[in-house]
């Protein structure tokens, strides 16, 4: 085996960080690759170490920019994007952002309407597009005896609207006031 003196001469170690067998397995997944010299295996392994160190460092820089102590997928993604050669082969391979199954606590909360009480005399617009709740007759648009805001008559006029309002974005738009000309 290689002695420590040989390894560290010229400051260039030939001790590898990754198991050679595994690196070779990954190389030969491509069936066009038939034979690989031990030299080539060594260099692929070494350059992969360099690549990993590079990407780790750049990802950490992004995390620092965003004032985070934990390097996460989005930091890695940003690091990939910033280096063109890496971006070219790697960006499309990364998992897509914002996996719904894995809520990331560090990202902004989803902008859903809060379930706090609306001001008196008014109703939340999404209430109009739900089926009347039999336990809450006050919310039924068909109960004219209750104090109701003018929006209810809008629903009666446009019965097709509920079918359109499926996404939170449209609800958000519906909630924003119509811009008023202030001139």
């Amino acid at each position: 085996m290689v002695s420590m003196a040989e390894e560290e001469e010229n400051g260039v170690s030939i001790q590898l960080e990754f198991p050679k067998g595994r690196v070779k397995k990954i190389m030969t997944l491509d069936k066009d690759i038939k034979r690989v010299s031990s030299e080539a295996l060594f260099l692929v392994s070494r350059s992969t170490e360099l690549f990993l160190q590079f990407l780790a460092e750049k990802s950490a820089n992004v995390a620092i920019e965003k004032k985070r102590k934990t390097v996460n997928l989005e930091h890695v993604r940003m690091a990939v994007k910033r280096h063109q050669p890496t971006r070219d082969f790697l960006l499309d391979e990364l998992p897509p952002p914002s996996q719904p199954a894995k809520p990331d606590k560090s990202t902004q909360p989803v902008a859903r309407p809060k379930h706090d009480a609306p001001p008196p005399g008014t109703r939340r617009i999404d209430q109009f597009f739900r089926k009347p709740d039999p336990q809450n007759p006050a919310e039924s648009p068909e109960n004219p005896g209750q104090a109701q805001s003018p929006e209810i008559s809008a629903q009666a006029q446009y019965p097709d609207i509920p079918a359109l309002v499926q996404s939170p974005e449209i609800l958000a738009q519906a909630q924003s006031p119509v811009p008023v000309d202030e001139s």
Partner: protein
Amino acid sequence: MEDSLGGSSSKDNCGIKEQDRLLPIANVSRLMKQILPQNAKISKEAKETMQECVSEFISFVTSEASEKCRKERRKTVNGDDICWALATLGFDDYAAPIRRYLHRYREIEVDHNNKANHQERGINNPQERDELCKLR
């Protein structure tokens, strides 16, 4: 869920086990920690993503080198092919250190070959070397 990596998950269904196509997460993790500041942490998802990234890098460089061999009608991918592939793919920053490693590796290999009195070069694995010894 730890195997789920979104867009990469389709590769998990190719019948290739993760341990065959990924480098061990322990090695990946250790190398990352060497680079990061001491108080920094890495999310599990980021570590797994890095695993995938380095495997992609290996495949990417290797296939470029292999393509060169194919065009030149050579069957064995050698160290110079890897150097060439790295430069071609835009990783010329690695060219200098990689050439140093190559130079060093060749020095040591020559040394070993001289010591062991072997005449053969470019042997892929110790098994082949042993088999060649038996033939003599």
